């Protein structure tokens, strides 16, 4: 008998095992055809099955074989997607579920942002190499410990103070960054999200255009009964309140040391807002994939499409 060390190595054992598990409930083409023939011809199903097997032995796959194979491939693909979507998840307390392929939108815990332990420092070069920053951009700043490093006494203590620490790599907009999330306790948020109306261009401001144009746009954006779009019910009143608020924002920001380069800010949300996503009609809300900041060119863009908006 051959010993385990003599067995031929599998090309990609984890992937093969995952595929095997996903296909566990899947029947083969032969099994499916036999079931189909028996069900279709209850009185002479055995003869039909024998005839089909004979044709296969003679190397003559019938049109039925080709059709069944195509059908089974489609079913297999759908089953894998359904299983992956529903079962390949990680749950973080209290109710945060991350699915395979999702971004883990979390930042690094404060206790891991700076290298304090020399043994952690040794991990840093390998972390840098493993990051995949896009061309022309530095890897995102953040903590300096990876899984192997957490086994060091200092890092373990730090992670225990703040709860269990998990790592995920997500292929986000910046080409792949690393994030940490606390399984218990607050996550560190290091990103902003800009929500805007689906079909419009992001990063623009109603305040930066003439009042008549802004009012026209707001009238088009108004959706009765919508928590998000109801604010445009009385455009003139809204605009007056907004200008008053922005004057206060700018004044306070400068007082705190800010140096505004724009007269009016572009609005975003710190981290992800479940409130926005729950309250908004999904058909009218979006987040940018690739766009430019165009607060100054709003009037030109909106002259072609009166339904565009910005947050």
């Amino acid at each position, binding site marked *: 008998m051959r010993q385990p060390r003599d067995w031929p190595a599998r090309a990609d054992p984890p992937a093969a095992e995952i595929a095997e598990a996903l296909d566990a409930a899947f029947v083969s083409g032969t099994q499916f055809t036999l079931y189909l023939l028996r069900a279709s011809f209850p009185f002479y199903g055995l003869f039909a099955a024998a005839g089909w097997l004979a044709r296969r032995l003679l190397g003559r796959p019938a049109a039925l074989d080709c059709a069944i194979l195509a059908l089974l491939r489609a079913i297999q693909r759908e089953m894998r997607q359904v299983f992956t979507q529903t079962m390949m998840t990680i749950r973080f307390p209290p109710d945060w579920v991350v699915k395979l392929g999702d971004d883990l939108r979390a930042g690094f815990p404060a206790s891991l942002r700076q290298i304090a332990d020399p043994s952690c420092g040794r991990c840093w070069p390998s972390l840098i190499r493993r990051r995949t920053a896009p061309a022309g951009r530095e890897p995102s700043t953040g903590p300096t410990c990876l899984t192997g490093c957490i086994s060091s006494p200092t890092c373990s203590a730090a992670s225990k103070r703040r709860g269990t620490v998990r790592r995920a790599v997500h292929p986000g907009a910046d080409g792949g960054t690393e994030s940490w999330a606390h399984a218990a306790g607050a996550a560190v948020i290091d990103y902003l999200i800009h929500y805007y109306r689906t079909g419009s261009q992001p990063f623009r401001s109603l305040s930066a255009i003439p009042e008549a144009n802004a009012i026209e746009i707001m009238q088009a954006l108004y959706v009765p009964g919508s928590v998000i779009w109801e604010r445009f019910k009385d455009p003139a009143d809204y605009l007056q309140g907004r200008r008053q608020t922005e004057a206060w*924002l700018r004044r306070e920001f400068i007082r705190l040391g800010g140096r505004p380069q724009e007269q009016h*800010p572009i609005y975003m949300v710190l981290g992800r807002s479940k409130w926005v996503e729950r309250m908004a009609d999904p058909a009218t809300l979006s987040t940018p994939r690739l766009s*430019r900041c165009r607060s100054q060119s709003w009037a030109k863009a909106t002259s072609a499409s009166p339904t565009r908006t910005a947050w």
Partner: protein
Amino acid sequence: MPLSILGESDVSFTYPDSMVSYFLELRQDPEVYQPGYHGRVFTLSQIRKIVDEKGLPEEGWVTKTAADVAHYVEAQVWNCRLLEEYWRGRDPR
């Protein structure tokens, strides 16, 4: 977009939405007004400290905010060049 592309002088924050925060400060209705948050503009380092300690508002902040009022920290970005550079794939810094 990563916060790391923005500096202290590029972005400010309010809780909740800036218009709501501003008018809650003006009205000071005792049922909803919270002087620690409302009518205040936060810097990047100030908001980092708050979120590091308490998480995001939806992660357990004790507030008097009604369910139909925005329950998030709003960021105001005051430098469009940085946004544009970032979305063009260039290093904004």
